[in-house]
């Protein structure tokens, strides 16, 4: 019995060991090491945002085909996106002038503001028989992606705050964002699908671009 229990313990320990997921190469105090892990996070997040953007572009073009047969027609109503209130740098100099904390914040704001509208979008599209299954699946995937990306960026921001790369001034802004997003989402409900998708396509491009700027500012060694 004793031997069995010892063996069992050993196996459990091994199993525990196995459960420990692969940690970054350096998990301890080094500054260089931490930057390396942040770089990995950045890469992952940027990949994610790329995917998200391409998906939104596909959906947008698909919807335009359905609901807007003639492109560039005069008088096309270009309703403002619900995220237009969020001030975002719209040029390279502007973006480079924006500090990293603000940039991170902008990203997060954008992502947060899109979580609900996309969910609603998916719900409305799910019942739409005219659209193909492929489109409906894409819509679902899109809303999931936003969630994941937001979580990823949040974690990355936390890490950066932990490492002192960005200051802790971010925390104060989040509650304000929550209220903003609810009104925005109400507005978004009235938008048509294709307009929604166009807005989202643009915003996802912003997010992607800002993330890249951030990465090349913080960890410029890899691929900048």
């Amino acid at each position, binding site marked *: 019995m004793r031997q069995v229990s010892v063996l069992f313990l050993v196996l459990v320990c091994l199993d525990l060991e196995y459960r420990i997921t692969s940690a970054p190469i350096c998990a301890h105090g080094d500054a260089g090491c931490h930057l390396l892990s942040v770089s990995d996070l950045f890469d992952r997040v940027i990949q994610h945002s*790329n995917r998200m*953007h*391409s998906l939104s*572009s596909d959906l947008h073009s698909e919807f335009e085909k359905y609901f807007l047969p003639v492109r*560039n027609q*005069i008088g*096309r109503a*270009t309703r*403002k996106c619900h995220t*237009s209130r969020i001030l*975002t740098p*719209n*040029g*390279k*100099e502007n*973006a*480079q002038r924006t500090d990293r904390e603000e940039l991170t914040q902008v990203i997060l704001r954008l992502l947060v503001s899109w979580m609900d509208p996309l969910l609603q979008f998916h719900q409305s599209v799910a019942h739409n028989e005219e659209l193909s299954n492929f489109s409906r699946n894409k819509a679902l995937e899109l809303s999931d992606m936003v969630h994941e990306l937001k979580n990823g960026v949040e974690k990355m921001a936390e890490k950066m705050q932990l490492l002192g790369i960005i200051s802790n001034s971010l925390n104060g802004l989040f509650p304000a964002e929550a209220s903003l997003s609810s009104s925005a989402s109400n507005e978004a409900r009235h938008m048509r699908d294709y307009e929604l998708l166009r807005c989202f396509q*643009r915003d996802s*491009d*912003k997010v*992607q*671009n800002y993330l*890249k*700027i*951030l*990465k*090349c*500012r913080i960890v*410029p060694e890899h*691929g*900048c």
Partner: protein
Amino acid sequence: MKEACGAKCVLFLLFVQTWLVENTGHTSPGKPVLLRCRSPEKETFACWWQPGSDGGLSTNYSLYYTMEGSREDAVHECPDYKTAGLNSCYFNKTYTSLWITYTISVVAQNALGSKSSDPMFVDVAYIVQPHKPENISAELRTQDQKPYLMVNWDPPHKADTKSGWITLQYEIRLKPEKGAEWESHYAGQQKQFNVFSLHPGEVYLVQVRCKPDHGFWSEWSSTTYIEIPDYFRPRDTSVWILIAVLSLCIFLILAWTVAIKCNSIKSYLLPPVPGPKIIGFDTQLLKSGKSEDLLNALGCQGFPPTSDCEDLLVEFLEVDDSDEQKLVMNEGKDDLEGRVKSSGNEVDNDSGRGSCNSHTLLLEVSNSSTKTFAQVGGNSNNKGSVKLSRKSSTNGKLLSFETTGEKTNTWPTTNSSFLLARQSSCHNISKIHREASSLGNKADMHGNTSTAQSKSKEYRELPSTVSGDQKTWFADEKHAPLLPFKSVEYVEVQKLNQQSMLILKPKTEGHKSVPPEFIGQEYTKVSGVVSDRVLLLLRDTGAQGSSDTQEGKNQAVPPSLQCQVGKMVGTFPASPALEGMQLAASGYVDTAAVLQSF
């Protein structure tokens, strides 16, 4: 009236206007068309349009735009018509805002009117078309003896990739100078690319282009030329090795085949030239260089050969003493043995062949004699009698001699093989070996031991007729053995015993020891033969002990005989054999010829 006048006036005006237009050709401008708007670096952009017909009048174009998010009536005009070229509008950084939809239109205006183009909705972030990549370098490198092309380039200098503002993807294409199609490779975001599978000895053209994440492909860069030098690829090396190994195998197989079939090939390619074959011509003799022997073998005594050569009987009997050891006497008389052995050790060249030369008694044969026979006396009573037995009845057989006695026999035993010799054309020579051992006298044996000494002496076959105690050999002239001739040896007659047998003793050189009994013996010439049993011997003048012989002679010899040295005198009953008898210069008689009559 007024109404009619008004209508008329309007018509008149219209008519004038159209007339004016037709005569002058001026109209309001045609509708311009906006072609495209492009941003090279996502910081500025420019738009181009195509003017419509100008209506014959100078027309100017102006571009107006509105921005999303601003008020509807905030229409702006193009800030820069020149930088981007003709019919273009260039927006610099201050006028460029990303992620904003521009509504752009062009208005053409001349004296007669203006026309506006269709609007174009532009979001600068999505109209990026960068410039070409720059500083393209192609370098030839080898990896594991395989060459590859390493191509490096830089992004267009205006595109800011370092800050992450733009992310570019690249594409490279190359083709051989004389090739028809380009080979494209997607390089991703890296600024370097390795190209494999190159053809050596060719000049390659390399081009690169780039594209942002979502945007347009740039134009192909300027061509870079690189030459791939000729080299021996490792693949070729292995192929050559394979070829070498295969050819070696084939060569080995051929060589082996040739080696095996060498003879047949030789005979096929170079058929053997038939050599001359002359009967009786012994090439061995020729090689040994004894011309005398050679000529003698041909059956000619002296040269040129006489016509009678072939007719001469050549016969001889050889004793094969290969089993000489058995002949040694039990008592082992040393001197006898010595004699036996000494001469026996001599190599007899005519082993296995018929030979006209031998260390034996040489008796000359008459030309015409076809048969000769030799008498060998045998005393059955004596010990060690030698028996002649005929092996077979046909010609050319072996004669075997059996020795039954303990004592040494001069004749070789039956075990020894007597080789038959073909009748050689040696004509005058025959040998007769006399048996002496049958007498049972030790002394008697001396005489004939010599005959046994030569090795492998040949016996001519003969249909022997055994008569009484005597046995005769008949020598057939069959085939002349080709044997080298040895020096003639003389046989010393020991004595003539009572049974009318000639006891011979070879006269060998260098007698080692002469038994005292034989001292005083000397040569005797045979003067003639009486009947078939008596040899008439001549005595030398100084011979001793001749009285006996003489007496014997006197008894048997017919009165006509006379003693003459060197000659045979006397009359004999005519016999054809005797007629052919010839006396050699030495005066010795070939008994074979004498006895031929029988």
